[in-house]
């Protein structure tokens, strides 16, 4: 009888330990990869601004989530007003297609790409200057910059992602 009680106690302890370990793992599997947070997006933008200031560039920088929806955006002092729209559009394209926007430029006139631009309200911009953010094999977002040459824009966002370790 006493042995039986000990056994059930041990079983209960094992269940609690296992449950506390397994529950978060199961939860993570259900929710997919960890989404990009606002603080991560702001860290990327801050890193991009530092890089741009070093190279004397005036950029708008935008970070979107894996769906292409805006998380954070900033226009640096003296960056042209219209660069904001381009930065957001490039980042949206990179997120939705999961590729650097430079690779999308060649196919921007294809029916699929035009259709995708209609679906998203005509906001996509298929120019070089944005790269997707990948975590555990999933595109969790993208960062785009605009305001300098297309190559400088892309170098800037790559440097920013490198600086924050994404």
């Amino acid at each position, binding site marked *: 009888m006493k042995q039986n009680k000990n056994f059930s106690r041990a079983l209960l302890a094992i269940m609690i330990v296992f449950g506390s370990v397994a529950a978060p793992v199961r939860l993570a599997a259900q929710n997919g990869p960890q989404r990009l947070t606002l603080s991560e997006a702001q860290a990327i933008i801050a890193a991009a601004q530092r890089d741009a200031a070093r190279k004397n560039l005036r950029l708008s920088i935008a970070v979107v989530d894996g*769906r292409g929806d*805006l998380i954070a955006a900033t*226009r640096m*002092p003296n*960056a042209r007003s219209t660069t904001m729209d381009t930065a957001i559009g490039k980042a949206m394209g990179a997120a939705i297609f999961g590729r650097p926007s430079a690779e999308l430029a060649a196919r921007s006139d294809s029916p699929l790409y035009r259709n995708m631009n209609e679906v998203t309200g005509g906001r996509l911009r298929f120019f070089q200057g944005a790269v997707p953010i990948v975590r555990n094999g999933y595109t969790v977002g993208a960062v785009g910059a605009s305001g300098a040459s297309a190559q400088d824009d892309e170098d800037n966002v790559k440097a920013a992602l490198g600086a924050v370790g994404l």
Partner: protein
Amino acid sequence: MFRSQYRWSVLARSILATVIFVVPVAAQQRDAPAPPPGPTTAQAMAALAAAQEAAEALGVSLSCAVVDSRGDMIAMARMDGARFFTTDVAQGKARMSALFGQPSGAMADFGNSAAFSSFNETIPGPLYAFQGALPIMRDGELIGAMGCSGAASQVDEDAVRSALSVF
């Protein structure tokens, strides 16, 4: 006598050289166009941080946007948990407030008018005549607006108001 004349001619030559060579080079640099009046990027980002703090204290998740006097966005942030469309609404309310120099909440009647619908067609980009955005003034001049979206419209406006002290 000769010396001082020589010195003056050196000075005159160097001024002439500056005018001929340096001024055109400076003019050729692709400087940014004179921007419309607006808060600085640093001010805009500080205001977003202040609004986020206020929203966290109120227990809500908001998107907030700061625009200049032309209605062009300077900075925006969507807090974790805020719905995706709140970015557009925050921006649209801020633009409304910036273009008319009034709280967007004071423009509900105009928002229902025929004049607004034609105005909305003329001006590209989102425009929302709902409460939740306030104009930003500096020395009596309208320099932009800030808008938030994601909670009850009064809460949105309260978050903006608590961030306006940054400007």
